[in-house]
């Protein structure tokens, strides 16, 4: 059988094209052959110049104007067929030699070569030898031996030259045909086919042969007429031949003549599609097929079967009819032909048959049929045991891959780029949800069994054909697509064949088909700097306001709804700043997979990807962070990863794996590679649209002293230095620092001026600014949690989300390009102030002591810090050394209250505690500003010890005792109905409260620990609680103030005016020692046995007149009353008891008296008075229970030191 036959092929003159002389480079040979083969059709009209009619042409009806000669060039020649007598078109009628002169310098040798080559084709009627690219020397040689030189020139003239030569060849062929036909007509020839030669030449046979000879000769003449381009002549001869053959029963030749007549018919009407003609052709050909079959049956006994002619006829008809409308008829013909394959003895015949069938099915559009027969072809090739056959098999199989949907991605690139698919994938991505039916369509025509077989055969054939790239690709496709169907041993085998193929490939070979691992996009972990790109509003100066989440909540209802929706799909990368993409790799196979390098594949070309290498053990998956740096502004598309494994570089697309996983979820694919590796559930991640924006400034914050937590004791105040460095390439031109998060009040101050003065921060520049922190107080729950923990870290606990943040918004300069100013986005840097508050000094309790405990205070202790205190003057200092009792030996101290703070140090460091009461000098109303301040005396509290700190409280009294302070107590008693009164009451109340707070805020307990820890105890609440009970006593002045002074020699001695009064109602005198103020004493000693003139000053602190019954008492150290009638120690002059006096409001009254001390020693004078007709205010102040109670008011004792005269 011969390939490529068609009905018209009976009219083609076969020309063998043979390379002669020295070796011809393949490219040159291809070029020369193409040059020759261009002229497959030579018009008869163009032959005229070369044609000379020697005798009368037998082709009487030759169409010189329209006809043509058809040449069929066979490169390399062909084996002479035994059937060439039967069909003249099978004969090689001309030989053309091709010679590449540069490689064969000796022209004589070339000529000899050509003659030798031409000799193998005895049927050749003409021969030419074309020599290309001659050297000058060769051109100069005489043009002998029939070698036609083609001097080097441009392509066009070369073609023209060749055309001339071919026309010459055709003309000489035509003349030869004429000669041959004339001779055949006159003498006749013996025409034999292999069918005839086999038969024994019995007499009967000889007679039969003689009868048949004429018919056969007519048929051959017809063939030559056809070759000579004269279908009309051919038709006449064929008709004769048919008649003769029918008469002689020469079935085989009858069929041949019929074929010839159809050919003549078709050639004659070439280019016209005529249904009548088609029916004719069809009818004739069915007859032909029948005849051939009959011939086959007749000669069945013989060794040589003409069955191939029957098949060829069927193929010719099929090719003629091969159109979509006639698909059924053609496929029937082809199936019939395929059935005939069994009858073919020669394997190469079968090969050709299958090839032809496959080709015809392919041109019919029956891809799967074509693939099926191609595979049959490949199997026949594989039966031959040589590399060329294997290569052919491989190539044929590769052609089938499209039909079986296992094509290499290299060949299906165009499919991927088809707009339809892109649109589909986009719409899928948009909706985010894929309809199951469309999922199904993704896996169309998946015949996994067949696909595996085909791939395996490709692999086998490519190994045999020594094509490592193809075998790598086939093994990769096989492994990737069908690993669940392959046994572990098979998988390892494929892995090793991959490795073997890679060994033969040059390093760095790329293959279009990915192998393992499976790679899917896991997530795009945002670098903090990426997250913090803030769009700037050009119309808003302070663009940062409301730009970021300001509270502790993830969702804030105040952010704009529109922005959050779109930002999900869009990511901005910044030129020059590294980014990361997390991908998941899976190796579902049973061998160790070594990925030599993997990096992101970027088609947009503006991204530098960094490779990493991964080792995947069997059946595992791994998350890998791939990073890179965007290099240019624009869109970035990352369709997948470039993987270098098994020695070959491949590109793995995310989209493909997504499709695969989608199929796996629907049960359309055998297995999900990620799930079988124990990875988590499938979640589809769409690659967001990423755009690269121009470089922005990048601030990096650094807390000086380490980025760890700042360990602070409760209440500690510390300065933290924060360094901002611009790590970007653009200067920071504006910035804003704000606080957010919890515990914002723990940041006392931020040195805004420092960083503001550093703006703009140039690339690489840095600024350090100070933030003052104060540790907050741990709540009770914190403390309890601490207790429960192990002792080692119990105090170092830190909870998430309780820290304040510094929100730093900053931006670079505006772009000035193109005449318009565009604002690049700003950025936000969040600096968490990791404050770890540990338990520090603890205030166990605060209480106001009622001076049951004896305490001594020296003057030093009581020295006021404030110089404004008008009470202190130089004379004070004289008595510094005198330690005075402030204690009433009987009833505790006078005028002094102590606030006791009990502190406990649970930490493992030592604390020093300072207690100070800050005086408020501006408060002029406070007449008696005596404070205790022990600034120089620190109390050191060792670890796990507690200590008590006493705070003396003195003279925080208000100047006037007013009724309004008691409104609450008296509200029920007094009929105060008027509104004005109520308002006044309220004001007074507020004033009282304010003064309480004022007092409390003045008391500060500071502590130090170590070198740089210092802070303040928060004791406000505790003190308030402690003071609340006796606040009245502390703050309110006594209604009456008594003071003594000497009136000696007419000059006033220094008098300590003191107002310390003990003021209580008589029944409850002892129980309630009044608030003490200062110790009263006479500065100068008084001599005994002298008359001492004294006076007592009584001041009314209320707004009403107070009438009273005043009496003065004197006691010695033993507490004996010295003014007793019976006592002889003190003599006196003047009234000392039952003095009826009346003091006007806010005024003073002086009552003089004289005393005469007989015995030196210490004495104390005390004034007391019973108030007559006490008002409600006084009663309330004295906390009288019943209105009848006498109200007693008592001053502080006045100390007198009496010295003897001796």
């Amino acid at each position: 059988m011969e390939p490529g036959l068609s009905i018209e092929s009976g009219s083609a003159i076969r020309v063998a094209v043979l390379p002669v002389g020295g070796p011809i480079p393949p490219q040159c040979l291809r070029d020369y052959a193409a040059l020759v083969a261009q002229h497959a059709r030579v018009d008869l009209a163009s032959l005229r110049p070369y044609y000379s009619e020697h005798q009368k042409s037998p082709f009487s009806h030759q169409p010189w104007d329209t006809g043509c000669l058809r040449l069929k060039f066979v490169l390399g020649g062909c084996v002479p067929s035994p059937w060439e007598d039967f069909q003249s078109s099978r004969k090689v009628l001309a030989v053309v030699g091709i010679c590449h002169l540069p490689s064969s310098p000796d022209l004589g040798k070339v000529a000899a070569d050509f003659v030798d080559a031409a000799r193998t084709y005895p049927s050749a009627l003409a021969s030419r030898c074309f020599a290309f690219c001659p050297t000058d020397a060769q051109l100069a040689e005489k043009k002998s031996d029939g070698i036609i030189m083609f001097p080097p020139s441009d392509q066009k003239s070369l073609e023209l030259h060749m055309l001339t030569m071919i026309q010459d060849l055709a003309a000489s062929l035509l003349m030869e045909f004429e000669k041959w036909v004339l001779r055949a007509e006159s003498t006749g020839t013996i025409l034999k086919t292999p069918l005839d030669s086999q038969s024994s030449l019995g007499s009967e046979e000889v007679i039969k042969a003689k009868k048949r000879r004429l018919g056969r000769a007519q048929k051959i003449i017809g063939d030559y007429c056809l070759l000579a381009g004269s279908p009309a002549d051919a038709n006449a001869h064929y008709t004769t031949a048919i008649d003769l053959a029918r008469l002689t029963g020469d079935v085989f030749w009858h069929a041949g003549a019929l074929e010839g007549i159809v050919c003549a018919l078709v050639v004659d009407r070439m280019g016209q599609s005529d249904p009548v003609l088609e029916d004719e052709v069809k009818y004739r050909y069915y007859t032909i097929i029948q005849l051939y079959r009959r011939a086959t049956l007749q000669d069945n006994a013989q060794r040589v079967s003409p069955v191939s002619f029957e098949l060829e006829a069927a193929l010719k008809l099929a090719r003629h009819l091969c159109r979509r409308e006639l698909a059924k008829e053609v496929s029937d013909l082809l199936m019939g032909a395929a059935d005939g394959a069994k009858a073919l003895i020669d394997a190469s015949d079968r090969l050709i048959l299958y090839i032809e069938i496959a080709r015809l099915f392919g041109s019919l559009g029956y891809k799967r049929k074509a693939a099926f027969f191609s595979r049959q072809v490949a199997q026949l090739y594989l039966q031959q045991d040589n590399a060329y056959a294997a290569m052919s098999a491989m190539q044929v199989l590769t052609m089938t891959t499209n039909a079986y949907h296992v094509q290499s991605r290299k060949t299906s690139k165009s499919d991927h780029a088809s707009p339809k698919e892109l649109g589909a994938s986009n719409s899928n991505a948009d909706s985010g949800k894929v309809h199951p039916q469309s999922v199904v369509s993704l896996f169309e025509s998946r015949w996994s069994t067949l696909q595996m077989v085909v791939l395996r055969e490709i692999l086998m054939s490519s190994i045999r054909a020594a094509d490592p790239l193809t075998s790598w690709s086939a093994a990769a496709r096989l492994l990737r697509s069908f690993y669940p169907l392959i046994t572990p041993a098979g998988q390892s085998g494929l892995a090793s064949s991959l490795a073997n193929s890679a060994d033969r490939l040059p390093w760095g070979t790329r293959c279009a088909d990915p192998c393992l691992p499976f790679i899917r996009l896991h997530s795009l972990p945002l670098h903090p700097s990426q997250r913090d790109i803030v769009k700037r509003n050009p119309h808003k100066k302070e663009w940062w306001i409301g730009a970021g989440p300001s509270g502790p909540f993830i969702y804030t209802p105040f952010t704009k709804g529109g922005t959050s929706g779109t930002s999900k799909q869009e990511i901005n990368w910044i030129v020059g700043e590294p980014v990361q993409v997390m991908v998941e790799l899976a190796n579902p196979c049973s061998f160790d997979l070594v990925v030599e390098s993997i990096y992101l594949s970027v088609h947009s070309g503006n991204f530098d990807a960094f490779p990493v290498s991964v080792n995947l053990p069997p059946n595992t998956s791994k998350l890998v962070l791939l990073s890179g740096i965007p290099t240019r502004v624009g869109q970035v598309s990352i369709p997948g990863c470039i993987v270098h494994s098994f020695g070959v570089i491949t590109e793995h697309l995310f989209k493909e794996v997504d499709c695969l996983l989608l199929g796996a979820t629907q049960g359309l694919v055998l297995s999900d590679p990620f799930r079988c590796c124990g990875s988590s559930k499938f979640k589809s991640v769409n690659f967001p649209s990423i755009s690269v924006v121009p470089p922005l400034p990048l601030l990096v914050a650094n807390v000086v002293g380490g980025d760890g937590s700042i360990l602070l004791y409760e209440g500690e105040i510390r300065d933290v230095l924060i360094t901002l460095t611009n790590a970007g390439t653009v200067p920071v031109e504006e910035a804003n620092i704000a606080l957010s998060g919890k515990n914002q009040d723990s940041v006392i101050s931020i040195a805004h001026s420092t960083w503001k003065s550093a703006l703009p921060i140039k690339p690489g520049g840095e600024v350090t600014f100070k933030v003052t922190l104060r540790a907050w107080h741990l709540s009770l729950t914190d403390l309890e949690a601490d207790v429960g923990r192990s002792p080692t870290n119990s105090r170092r606990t830190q909870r998430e989300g309780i820290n304040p943040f510094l929100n730093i918004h900053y931006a670079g300069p505006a772009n000035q390009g193109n005449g318009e100013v565009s604002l690049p986005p700003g950025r936000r840097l969040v600096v968490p102030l990791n404050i770890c508050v540990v338990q520090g000094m603890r205030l166990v309790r605060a209480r106001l002591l009622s001076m049951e405990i004896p305490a001594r205070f020296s003057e030093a202790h009581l020295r006021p810090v404030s110089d404004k205190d008008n009470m202190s003057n130089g004379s004070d200092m004289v008595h510094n050394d005198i330690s005075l009792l402030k204690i009433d030996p009987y009833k505790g101290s006078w005028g002094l209250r102590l606030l006791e703070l009990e502190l406990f140090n649970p930490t493992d460091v030592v604390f020093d505690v300072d207690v100070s009461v800050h005086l408020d000098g501006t408060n002029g109303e406070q007449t008696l500003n005596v404070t205790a301040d022990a600034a120089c005396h620190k109390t050191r509290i060792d670890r796990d010890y507690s200590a008590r700190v006493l705070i003396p409280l003195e003279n925080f009294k208000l100047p006037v005792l007013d009724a309004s302070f008691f409104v609450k107590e008296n509200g029920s008693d007094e009929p105060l109905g008027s509104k004005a009164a109520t308002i006044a009451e309220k004001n007074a109340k507020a004033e009282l409260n304010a003064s309480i707070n004022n007092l409390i805020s003045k008391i500060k307990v500071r502590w130090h620990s170590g070198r740089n820890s210092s802070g303040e105890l928060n004791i406000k609440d505790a003190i308030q609680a402690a003071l609340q009970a006796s606040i009245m006593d502390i703050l309110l002045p006594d209604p009456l103030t008594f003071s003594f002074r000497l009136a000696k020699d007419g000059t006033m001695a220094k008098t300590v005016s003191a107002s310390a009064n003990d003021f209580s109602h008589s029944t409850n005198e002892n129980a309630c020692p009044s608030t003490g103020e200062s110790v009263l004493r006479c500065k100068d000693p008084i001599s005994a046995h002298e008359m001492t003139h004294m006076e007592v000053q009584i001041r009314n602190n209320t707004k009403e007149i107070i009438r009273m019954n005043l009496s003065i008492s004197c006691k010695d150290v033993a507490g004996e009353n010295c003014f007793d009638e019976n006592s002889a120690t003190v003599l006196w002059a003047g009234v000392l008891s039952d003095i009826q006096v009346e003091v006007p409001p806010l005024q003073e009254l002086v009552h003089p008296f004289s005393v005469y001390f007989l015995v030196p020693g210490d004495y104390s004078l005390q004034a007391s008075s019973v108030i007559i007709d006490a008002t409600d205010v006084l009663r309330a102040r004295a906390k009288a229970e019943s209105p009848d109670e006498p109200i007693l008011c008592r001053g502080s004792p006045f100390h007198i030191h009496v010295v003897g005269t001796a």
Partner: protein
Amino acid sequence: MASTACFVIVSKNDIPIYDAEVGSAPKKEDQAYQHQFILHAALDVVQDLAWTTNAMSLKSVDRFNELVVSVYVTAGHTRFMLLHDTRTEDGIKSFFQEVHELYIKIFLNPLYLPGSRITSSHFDTKVRALARKYL
């Protein structure tokens, strides 16, 4: 019973959703492939033929060597393809019809995604029983 028979259900999308070797001849691996190859190739013919007739049963549409492909096309264009070597037209027709009923039952299962593989073992058993009965 036919010595060689290979039954495949091909979905609308040309995916084989069920395949079974139902012949009595001992199984050979490469032959099973060969059967599927033939059936796959026959799809081309079926694709044209299905639109030329009203009948669901297309009888034998293709052949390769001694093996014949008979096809039954459902209304949803799911194709039942049987590769066999004996010609018992009636048996094949009954076989197809009964398998169609089974297939409809599968199809009615709300958990079955049309076009995906039929994995029901019950279906498999039934089909093989039908093959024994009719082929």
